[in-house]
């Protein structure tokens, strides 16, 4: 599904990603761990197409297509979703209107008829319940005045609505309370299908007890320095990052 080859990327002239290689197949869950500033969010942003980052070398294929030929919204329509480490607030834009615009754009790209208002409403309610997003939030502006955890839940709610092929969750667990973490993880597991995949970025092994990864990578200074199965996360928790440096 995703083939990253020798990816280098920089921001304002500083090289942050220094040769990433990563291959994700349909049905897999990959975890990426790594110290602060190692480049995890940078990798997510580069995959999503943020224009602050310049790709200087390497290639990324998504479902056989050159990712760098696609605009951020085309990547979204093709099925890439990024749950942000810091979701932004969009004052004045209602949650309903926002998600409706997003869903309609995707349907249009896929040349399908958009759901009717009644169907859409039903879908919204189901997905809200699935990720434990409080009903009252649906009536507000996107993330405006949301608590940290509410913002994270909202991103997962949007993921549930958009049903992406590849979802990248950037530290979705940080900020979630214990119950929310469990509910969100259950939601993710429900949405897990043989034909989609996840990249889960986290600092804590705890999330990986709920969302069990097939592969764990450790990112350090812009490179993947270690790859293993889920036991790698345990080992890391015990030994700390000095161990991989």
């Amino acid at each position: 599904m995703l083939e990253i080859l020798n990816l280098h990327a920089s921001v304002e002239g500083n090289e942050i990603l220094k040769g990433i290689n990563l291959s994700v197949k349909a049905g897999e869950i990959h975890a990426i761990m790594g110290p602060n500033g190692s480049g995890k969010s940078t990798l997510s942003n580069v995959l999503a197409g943020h224009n602050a980052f310049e790709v200087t070398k390497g290639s990324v294929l998504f479902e056989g297509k050159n990712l760098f030929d696609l605009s951020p919204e085309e990547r979204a329509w093709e099925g890439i979703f990024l749950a942000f480490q810091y979701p932004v607030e969009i004052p004045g834009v209602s949650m309903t209107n926002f998600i409706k615009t997003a869903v309609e754009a995707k349907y249009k790209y896929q040349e399908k008829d958009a759901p009717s208002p009644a169907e859409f409403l039903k879908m919204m309610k189901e997905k809200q319940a699935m990720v434990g997003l409080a009903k009252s939030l649906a009536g507000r502006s996107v993330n405006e005045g949301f608590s940290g955890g509410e913002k994270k839940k909202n991103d997962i709610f949007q993921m549930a609505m958009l049903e992406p092929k590849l979802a990248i969750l950037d530290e979705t667990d940080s900020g979630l309370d214990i119950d929310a973490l469990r509910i969100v993880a259950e939601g993710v597991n429900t949405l897990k299908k043989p034909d989609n995949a996840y990249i889960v970025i986290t600092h804590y092994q705890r999330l990986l007890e709920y969302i069990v990864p097939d592969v764990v990578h450790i990112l350090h200074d812009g490179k993947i320095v270690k790859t293993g199965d889920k036991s790698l996360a345990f080992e890391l928790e015990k030994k700390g990052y000095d161990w991989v440096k």
Partner: protein
Amino acid sequence: MTEKSKDKDIIDDLEKNEYKYGFSSNIESEVFPPGINEDVIRKISAIKEEPEFLLEWRLKAYRHWQTMEHPYWAHITLEKPDFQSISYYAQPSNKPKYDSLDEVDPEIISTFEKLGIPLEEQKLLAGVAVDAVMDSVSVHTQFRDQLEEKGVLFCSFSEAARDYPELIQKYLGSVVPYTDNYYAALNSAVFSDGSFVYIPKGVRCPMELSTYFRINAINTGQFERTLIIAEDDSYVSYLEGCTAPMRDENQLHAAVVELVAMNGAEIKYSTVQNWYPGNKEGKGGIYNFVTKRGLCKGHHSKISWTQVETGSALTWKYPSTILKGDFSTSEFYSVAVTNNYQQADTGTKMIHIGKNTKSTIISKGISLGKSNNSYRGLVRMAKTAENARNFSQCDSLLIGSQCGAHTFPYIDVHNKTATVEHEATTSKIADDQIFYCNQRGISTENAVSLIVNGFAKEVLSKLPMEFAIEAHKLIAISMEGSVG
């Protein structure tokens, strides 16, 4: 609210975007050569078969206008128009310059398509967008008979001058005298048409009244005149919409609107103004100089202005209210969008004279490209305005770094018991907000229009539904090609 009614609201909200709104018009033909003098004014008056007093009034206005200086504004760049090169009376002739729709600028067609104006309307445009001097004024008076049953008079200004001269004589110029300002004087001399509305005592006008203006011609000015009178305890909601085709030359639009609200009467006046703003290089576009003023004459009367201004190269417009009756109230809700080289200087004046009068001003300015958007407002509390209150809020949204937003609130208080509150904010659309939307599959254009519509929501929600939808679309169109 119950769960059910909430659901219904959401569904309504979702369905709203699907509404389509169309217009049609049917126009006589008459053309004058450019230039202004007393003969031109006599000819206009003669064609319209006006009563003598009206011709006299026009001539007085013309003579006064000649003594006036062209105005100067600090935040607007404008050369004085050549008033002798403009034609003052022009309606579409039957000699089409466009032989078919194919010859009409495709940009016009696509604009109309986006507006949801049906094909017949485009055909009509091809049919009427005609001669070197041509203009159109169309008054949508579909339900005239039904309205007359209730005693509501709704017709073109010309008809009113013939059919109800006493009302015209009594109220014309009573709120905006021809001495008021340069463009009001010019309008008073040469106004061609417009709408007249009269709501008798105790009548709630059963439908929204609407007039749709369009400028078609080259080198013409449009000078319409609107007069609305609401007798005691009556109510009316009136809508005005405007569009103009794209021309390289600037065109002049100088309208005057007068509203009179008697005891307990309410007038709701909404405008969606989309005159052609000029192209991306700042060429062409309408010069929009409008004097709109309402008089809350009776106690407990109410006038509310709602305006969405997306068009015109240059806008100079301050819908104002004189709160004369005790306990009278007025509201001003405005969204002004400027893009490319557009300049807007708009706002309101609230003149409090009566006791316990109350006014609210909500202004949302959105600037893009190299445009300049100014809010200019005056709140005056006269000596007699015991316990009068005003609240003003002016918010500006900047998109890009080459545009400007300015706020000039003037406050003039002569009564110690009066209170005036003013709040202002300026914000920008952040790249990260756009990226967030992009990542969800929302294009930059749609993202900006979502954010902008959200910013303007408080005002748009005051518009009648059909206009709210049109306004949403207009705002989206005026953003196009300017971001990303």
